[in-house]
């Protein structure tokens, strides 16, 4: 199974159209940028949309404090090279002063919502680009490309605006904002085919490397400052790569020997497990874990 250039071109044009609509109709857009592959592809598309001018958006990273060092280094290099402005909202700051409390399981993905909403309010961002894709997850499959959030940042999935043709309605009242998902119609395979075609550099952890890991809940977790084996869990050095990049304490690696985008494409096409199913402990919490987080204002 291969995706032709034509399909990628169609997806690329659709995403570029979305970026330009937002630039034209909003005052203060921001791109959520984590240094993960979807946000990297999003930034690449935004650069194409406004070339040869600079991207007219700020970047925002909601930092769990549980980062892969390679990803932070990548983030900072990109910001430096392209002369972009980066805002960082730190979960760590909220825990330090008591506004948020560490969860008993030690993971922080869920804790990102409050710092995100505070940053949106503080900077008066009115359009917030997220790299979410509809193929990722059941609740995301229901999301509009332009998705209104009320002044509490809440998503009301039962009362979404109709979204007709490519006429995106970004109107919102003061205090409300719109989440925009330019990659809505991309699949994981499309993203990798595009990374290969466009030769987009990624943090090295997306490709096969040796790492000390232990198995928990069917996932391979790295031994590191935020995740240590419990008694009974054994550490082994394996050749792995990351299929998604999130909070290091709940993002699993997969066994892989893929060292290039082309090899990852082959691996993803043959995979029998979805990317979030393979690598995200936080989505396994309940039947509707993502919907519940999204309703509260999560990405």
């Amino acid at each position: 199974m291969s995706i032709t250039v034509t399909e990628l071109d169609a997806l690329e044009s659709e995403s570029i159209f979305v970026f330009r609509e937002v630039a034209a109709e909003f005052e203060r857009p921001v791109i959520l940028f984590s240094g993960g592959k979807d946000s990297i592809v999003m930034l690449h598309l935004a650069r194409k949309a406004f070339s040869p001018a600079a991207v007219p958006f700020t970047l925002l990273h909601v930092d769990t404090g549980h980062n892969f060092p390679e990803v932070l280094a990548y983030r900072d290099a990109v910001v430096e090279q392209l002369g972009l402005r980066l805002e960082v909202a730190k979960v760590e700051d909220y825990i330090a002063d008591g506004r948020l409390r560490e969860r008993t399981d030690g993971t922080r993905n869920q804790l990102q919502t409050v710092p995100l909403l505070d940053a949106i309010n503080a900077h008066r961002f009115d359009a917030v680009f997220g790299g979410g894709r509809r193929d990722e997850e059941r609740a995301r499959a229901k999301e509009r490309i332009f998705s209104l959030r009320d002044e509490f940042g809440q998503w009301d999935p039962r009362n979404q605006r109709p979204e007709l043709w490519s006429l995106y309605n970004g109107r919102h009242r003061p205090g409300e904002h719109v989440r925009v998902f330019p990659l809505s119609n991309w699949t994981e395979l499309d993203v990798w085919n595009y990374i290969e075609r466009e030769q987009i550099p990624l943090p090295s952890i997306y490709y096969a490397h040796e790492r000390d890991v232990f198995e928990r809940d069917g996932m391979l977790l790295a031994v590191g400052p935020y995740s240590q084996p419990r008694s009974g869990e054994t550490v082994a050095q394996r050749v792995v790569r990351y299929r998604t990049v999130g909070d290091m304490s709940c993002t699993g690696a997969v066994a892989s020997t893929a060292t290039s985008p082309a090899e990852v494409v082959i691996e993803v096409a043959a995979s029998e497990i979805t990317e979030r199913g393979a690598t995200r402990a936080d989505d396994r919490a309940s039947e509707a874990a993502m919907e519940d987080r999204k309703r509260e204002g999560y990405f």
Partner: protein
Amino acid sequence: MSTLLRLATAGSVDDGKSTLVGRLLHDCKAILADQIAHVKTVSEARGGDFDFALLTDGLRAEREQGITIDVAYRYFATDKRSFILADCPGHVQYTRNTVTGASTADVVIILVDARHGVLEQTRRHLAVAGLLRVPHVVLAVNKIDLVGYDEAVFTKIAKDVGEVADQLGIADLKAIPVSALVGDNVVEHSADTAWYDGPTLLEVLENANGRTDTSNQPLRFPVQYVIRPQTDEYRDYRGYTGTVASGTVTVGDPVIVLPAGRRTSIAGIDRPVVTATSTAVVERPSAIAGEAVTVRLADDIDVARGSVIVAAEHSPGTRRELAATVSWLADRPLTVGARVLIKHTTTTAQAIVTKITGALDLDTLGVIDAAELALNDIGKVQLKIAAPLAADPYSSNAITGSFLLIDAHDGWTLAAGMIDDEEGELL
């Protein structure tokens, strides 16, 4: 060449849409092991058999009520092509979400329960498909197993729907007897419908033509955003970005910029070249419908968002009055004199509804007098608009022929509009 096909499903509550979609995905091997495990766990916890609908009904409320509330988008591929599937709700209350799903579809699959035949929702969904000019409609007569695989039942429903489709001007309708639950004629031919020698649902989808290629039609290029880098390298660069709505744009083409009506020509078309450290453009000779590009013009004239660059010899002109068919999507009714916003290509302007000409009667499929339009009504209206629009009839151009009506106060999308063939007043 492999292509992308966009499809949408529609049907009444309990016609088995989500089951059909689940079956289609499952039989195309588009459901992965962890998703199957998840559905198994949830199905078993409820003490039932494997429930295909749980593959797409993702919201808490949908699972609790066993209905689909909003469109779920699914992605799958066969060896022949890739698909984007919009699984739309059946409940009349959520018809606006079906309109959302159908607006970008190349194929709409309309389900009818073989035991119940054509219902009002069936007629409404056919009307929506006809109105939006979806190129292909597939009638899936579902639960054929529950009527003992009776050919006469299938033939009767296919004939009833065919008559409605004819009245609505739906050109391409294919009827298939299916059982989503059992899998008859979804991906595999059924041994129980020996009397049916037509294609399976998947065969129809794999072979359907996509949306009509509009690159041979006159150029329409709505300007989205103006690029002025003001860097040393691109000091005087002024590029007009947009997606070619129809036709082909070629360097040297004579064009008119609407609404001003100024004549000029295409000086250049730029393609972005982006590397890890550099952002630049290179010239290309032409671009076709659907491509997002940047064009430069030969003359320094006033061009901004909302301008439409059109072929000089095929200008649609501009109009401040429109006759259109609207699908009313809001809970509050539309009345004559209503002040709304109209969003048409990249222009948003104030508008007044000057007349409600009539509403579609779903029983007779005729237009009847109407004082107002209520939720889910399809009606004919006339609009007066505060700014001139470069508009075409929807029948000749789905992009420059469509619009939204928006509530200026709360921003809600009130209606989907399609400009009628009759000439409005040209200004």
